[in-house]
């Protein structure tokens, strides 16, 4: 494998210009992400306040745009506390285990098409490694460590509970996440994000969201929301149950880093959804002679902002899942669904006959599985059951009414 096949930038070998382009590209990606975080926090606060009929931040800068900056400055100047019971090294390491993967994941996202700079073809993507999308899965795996170690090393019980939840939740949803990614990789025939985007460039009908059926997209967006610990899957940071979750004991700059990482992940994952399912920078380019490279970037931005809005929308609308419901959804619904869909897609990739055969097999398996769940749930709700599931038990008001009715009779 030659260097040029990794990135067209290396076509003429490594010289100074290539190095400069490489460094500039990295710095720009870094700066874009950091600025995007500032805008994202502002956007989230503003959109949520609109949905709640409030005004939201408005004091710093036009429309309150600088509010995040002010908050950041405030956080940096606060006292940096390390609890006496904390494992100091791990406690200090944990925030970086969360924030660095967030950066690395963003590096593989193609932000636009290609550009010609000084005779070099430059891909607007910080890195295009051959293992591509696997990096996203690996990094989300590592960030679990960050959250887990942060909670564990705090030497405090709520963060510990939170980190237990975090590890269980993120690991269980990673399976569904991985299986949908496998579906896409199967259809594309390449792991590289650049190739995945290129395969969808021909038009809307080639976008994976439609080509693979909507199911992988739905599974992916649910799983990724859980992976991000964002509402409605924020049991990790459930304020009403766990104080502040895994970062309860963190203050000052280290807390800011967690916050930064959370929003960086939100943006990155919006970008990943766009890359995997919505053709990344693909979109209509008007017939102009100059600045053609701007339009793919604009398309990419529009799509990413749309998904960032979705996360905010979910947060404003949906109440938090209970922990057992969360596990139910992950293991009993999403994983079988994504696995089955992957098998069906794989069958159709060979030919039609295989596709229908696989669909039949999956349907059969689905029936068996749902019967098994039913039996298991029946056993769970036996003589020692504490409470039936919400929705199947009468509400307190209904119980009261039925009792008073009986008394009157």
């Amino acid at each position, binding site marked *: 494998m030659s260097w040029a096949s990794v990135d067209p930038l290396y076509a003429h070998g490594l010289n100074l210009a290539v190095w400069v382009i490489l460094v500039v590209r990295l710095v720009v990606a870094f700066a874009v992400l950091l600025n995007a975080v500032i805008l994202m926090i502002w956007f989230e606060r503003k*959109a949520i*306040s*609109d*949905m*709640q*009929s*409030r*005004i939201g931040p*408005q004091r710093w800068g036009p429309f309150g745009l600088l509010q995040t900056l002010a908050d950041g400055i405030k956080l940096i100047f606060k006292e940096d506390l390390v609890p006496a019971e904390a494992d100091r090294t791990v406690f200090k390491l944990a925030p970086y285990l969360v924030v660095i993967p967030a950066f690395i994941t963003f590096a593989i996202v193609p932000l636009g098409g290609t550009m010609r700079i000084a005779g070099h073809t430059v891909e607007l993507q910080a890195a295009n490694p051959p293992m591509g999308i696997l990096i996203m899965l690996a990094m989300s795996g590592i960030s679990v460590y960050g959250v887990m170690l942060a909670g564990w090393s705090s030497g405090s019980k709520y963060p510990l509970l939170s980190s237990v939840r975090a590890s269980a939740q993120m690991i269980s949803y990673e399976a569904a996440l991985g299986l949908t990614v496998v579906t896409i990789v199967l259809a594309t025939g390449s792991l590289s994000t650049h190739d995945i985007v290129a395969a969808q460039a021909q038009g809307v009908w080639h976008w994976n969201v439609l080509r693979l059926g909507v199911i992988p997209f739905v599974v992916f967006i649910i799983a990724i929301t859980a992976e991000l610990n964002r509402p409605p899957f924020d049991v990790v940071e459930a304020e009403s149950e766990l104080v502040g979750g895994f970062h309860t004991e963190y203050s000052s700059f280290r807390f800011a880093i967690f916050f930064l990482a959370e929003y960086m992940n939100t943006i990155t994952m919006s970008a990943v959804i766009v890359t995997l399912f919505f053709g990344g920078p693909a979109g209509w380019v008007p017939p102009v002679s100059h600045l053609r490279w701007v339009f793919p970037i604009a398309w990419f931005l529009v799509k990413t902002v749309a998904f960032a809005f979705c996360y905010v*929308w*979910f947060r*404003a*609308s*949906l109440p938090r899942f209970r922990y057992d419901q969360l596990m139910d959804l992950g293991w009993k619904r999403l994983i079988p669904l994504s696995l089955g869909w992957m098998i069906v897609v794989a069958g159709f990739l060979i030919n039609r006959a295989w596709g229908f055969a696989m669909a039949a097999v999956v349907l059969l398996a689905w029936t068996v599985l749902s019967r098994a769940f039913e039996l298991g749930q029946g056993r769970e709700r036996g003589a020692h059951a504490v409470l039936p599931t919400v*929705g199947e038990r009468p509400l307190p008001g209904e119980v009261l009414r039925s009792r008073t009715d009986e008394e009157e009779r």
Partner: protein
Amino acid sequence: MARSLDFFGGLKLTLRHLVRPTVTNSYPAVKRPKQPRQHGRHVLNRYEDGMEKCIGCELCAGVCPVDCIFVRGLDNPPDHPVSPGERYGYVYEINYLRCIHCDLCVEACPTQAITESKLFEFSFTNRADAIYTKAELLVDDEGNPQRLPWEDWREGEAEMTGGWMRAASPNGAADFEGVVQWSGDLGYGVRAPEGGQSGARDDEATGTKSIRRAFARHLEPEDVPLDQRGLPGLVSRARSTLARRRTKAEP
């Protein structure tokens, strides 16, 4: 199945709220209009000839549930009386660290000497400032409350003092609604009665609005008052806005 799709309803609701006007406003800069009967900082009124209304009877101090009022009366000096009658309020102090603005003192006062303005946004940096004496409470020579440096007076808060008292007759009987049973105030004369609890309320003159009307634009469609729904509502709202602007431009 229908139940599991309920969350789409939530998503729809938040989207609908996204385009609605906000309920809150940027508070210190923009303030909601206050109700005519808002309970705020007290004022000690004077008669139209400048005499004080307070007669030092201490009924307000007696009725005060939190003991925040301290009054001592004194015989009027014969050569230059402070109030008409025998006695006047020699010492009058209200401790605003204790006052709960219940307006029982206003109800108890036999001469309508103490009423409340609509000002509630005042703060102190020490306890001594929180005790308002007669020097601060008494209206000035134009009949307006004094504006202390730490008080945030806005337009209209000093007018209509004692709106509650003027809402109905002192004994609360609806028959006396709109019947003037109070004396005139310095600078304002005999103040007009306010529309009361019966159907004969004059909301135009007093600016009273029911909560449902005030928030009509934020309600669910089925909760909006009938005359404010749809196109007729749009027209009537526009008309009232125009009228308000015209009255503002006139003086």
